[in-house]
């Protein structure tokens, strides 16, 4: 599994596949304040991105791959501000 869950945050690592989206969504619903750590995330499936976009969470760490960050940041950071 590429996602580590704790009470405070979900840490997404390496490749997050669509198979992990069910669990991610469940965790997000169960943890309305939970933060997202993308520091070690290299890629997430579109479905995971959509789920995170909908959840509008604080991103505690952005991917170190700046090009990947460039793709997803506008969608996720916007939410942070809202």
């Amino acid at each position, binding site marked *: 599994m590429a996602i580590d869950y704790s009470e405070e945050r979900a840490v997404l690592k*390496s*490749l997050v*596949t*669509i*198979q992990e989206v069910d669990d991610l969504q469940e965790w997000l619903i169960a943890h309305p304040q939970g933060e997202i750590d993308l520091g070690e995330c*290299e*890629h997430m*499936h579109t479905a995971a991105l959509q789920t995170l976009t909908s959840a509008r969470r604080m991103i505690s760490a952005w991917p170190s791959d700046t090009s990947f960050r460039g793709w997803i940041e506008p969608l996720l950071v916007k939410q942070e501000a809202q």
Partner: protein
Amino acid sequence: MSKLIFVVDDSATMLMSVRSSLEMNGFKVETASDGVEALDRLNSMSPDLIITDMNMPRMGGMELIQALRAMSKFRFTPILTLTTESESSKRDQAKRLGATGWLVKPVPAMDLAKIIKQVLPGA
């Protein structure tokens, strides 16, 4: 971790060729020689990608794709069909049934690696 690719083709020669191309590119490979055998073997496997021939005895590619998409385990698994140049209509039909894309036989090893990288994140 190297990705597992499952290849289905009734031709042992084609299987051997695709297998060696894949292994050359660092993939793990499992095979079956028709749809029935594929479904049987896939019960106990979760490949990252499935490549299937279209024309096979017992169960062909179309039926296999339909069967796989009906299984929750393989709902989202990328599936590439192995087609010949003349089968373009089959490609589209297979796509409608849930195939991700297609390969055109014969597939040079380098093209194969490139295409797999396109459909498989992290490959």
